């Protein structure tokens, strides 16, 4: 049991964005999170990653209660996330965006940053090497010194995903990573994700509207509607589920 959500709720004024939601995710699972617009998917991500404070319920990660933790704490514990609209650091290059991400960088402390002893310099070099390897894998290595804002939309999504991966998360929350991305980049992304899932036991929870993609990569799908969980099962089960069909058709 890597992630457990129990009775999680969040309301904004009178609207229940997430309503008594509960589910478990096990290590190495690839789980899709779908539902009509406004069903609470991104809100759920914000709750898990600590961006929003919940109005009830609990979140457990690696058997620890992370319900009221700050975003940086949640990240340190091993959850990474991407955003629907990419949030890159606009005044940094592609490489810099990546090397900012890893945790436990000695040079990020005042004293070590000032002194920059050999250990810090070595760590910098190791991180840069790792970042370049990752850029190689996703096919962005030729752009390493480009400003992050000069990248195309699809490249930016790849970069954001790469940056998240640099934090070596155990669980990654992907918010519509394929929206607006061309087929070449899409298949590259899927390839990378599958590889990480296989080789590094990366657990993936992915919000996606493109049914074809979700149904093909996810082994399990959770469906939300109006903040409530209305279905949870294999892609085949979900496609046949009457509630799900109604949710999407009967607006």
């Amino acid at each position, binding site marked *: 049991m890597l992630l457990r959500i129990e009775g999680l709720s969040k309301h904004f004024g009178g609207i229940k964005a997430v309503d008594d939601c509960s589910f478990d995710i096990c290590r190495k699972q690839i789980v899709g999170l779908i539902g009509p617009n406004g069903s609470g998917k991104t809100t759920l991500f914000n709750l898990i990653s600590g961006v929003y404070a919940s109005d009830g319920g609990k979140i457990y990660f690696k058997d620890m209660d992370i319900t009221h933790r700050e975003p940086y704490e949640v990240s340190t514990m091993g959850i990474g996330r991407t955003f629907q609209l990419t949030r890159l*650091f606009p005044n940094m290059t592609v490489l810099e965006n990546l090397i900012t991400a890893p945790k436990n960088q000695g040079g990020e402390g005042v004293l070590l940053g000032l002194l920059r002893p050999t250990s810090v310099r070595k760590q910098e070099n190791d991180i840069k090497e790792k970042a370049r390897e990752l850029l190689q894998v996703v096919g962005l290595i030729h752009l390493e010194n480009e400003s992050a*804002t000069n990248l195309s939309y699809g490249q930016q999504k790849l970069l954001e995903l790469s940056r998240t991966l640099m934090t070596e998360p155990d669980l990654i929350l992907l918010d519509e990573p394929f929206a607006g991305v061309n087929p070449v980049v899409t298949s590259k992304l899927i390839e990378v994700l599958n590889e990480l899932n296989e080789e590094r036991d990366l657990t993936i929870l992915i919000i996606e509207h493109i049914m074809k993609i979700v149904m093909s990569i996810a082994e399990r799908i959770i469906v939300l509607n109006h903040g409530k969980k209305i279905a949870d099962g294999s892609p085949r089960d979900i496609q046949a589920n009457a509630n799900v069909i109604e949710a999407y058709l009967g607006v």
Partner: protein
Amino acid sequence: MMIVIPSYLLHILIVICFYFILAVSFNLCMGYTGLPLFSQVAFFALGAYSAAIAYENGYPFLVGLLLGALFPAFCGFLIAYPALRVRGDYFAIVTMGFAEIIYDVIHNEVWLTRGPYGISVGQPVIFGFKVDSYPTYLLLAIILTAITFVTIQRLVGSPYGRVLKATRDDELAASVIGKNTWKYKQQVIIIAALFSGIAGVYFAHYTRFVNDSPFTLAFTTTVMASVILGGLANNYGTFIGVALMLSFPEVLRVFIVTSENVGYIQQIVIGAMLISVMLIRTKRITVRKHAERRSMKDVIEN
């Protein structure tokens, strides 16, 4: 022997030095971390008064220096708690409030600070070495400036600086990759307060007199203007900004403007510059955004 350099020129260099310390500290907060530190003048004042009061009570220069660095730093540590609870521009207001409160205290608690009457301060003596002439003052100023500049420049060029920039550019993104942005913001406030306090100590011993009059909002806007002029997050540019800002009144004086009016005109020019720089920067960003939108065409083309 030595070439005779007019002491007036030395004076200008000295003023540039400690203004530069202030500007670089301000830049650390505003340019690199996105925090407009309007309380800097308070830290400067606290440093100056620490030195003055230490001197009054017979303590040597170095004690005053230590006090003038640590006490403002501690205040910076404290003010971070309320100030960082709010968004960037409101941070400006809260820190401005702190500066105002400190000013009022200085102005009114005459038993401690002699308010407008001020405290006289002697010349520094460091391990028997007397600082009592323009060249020696300049030397001390250069040493303090070098320490400040090297420290801050090294810091912003290191991974630490990366986290600051990430915090400035997208704090949410920085926190979801595990950076404790609050801690970093508090730290830069403390560092800026420390160096501003040191500048204050130097100021007290150089002008030999400390009263409440310099520690106003106009002081902060002048420092801020030099930083913005030189380009935020660019300490070399900041130096040029400071030099420009300080030489400007001298240029005005050439045109026989009366000395009080020089101050007002300088401020008017600073105000106009702030407005212009904001307009130019925004125009540049708008141009870049149009370029970004063009790259969205990839989505449609593919």
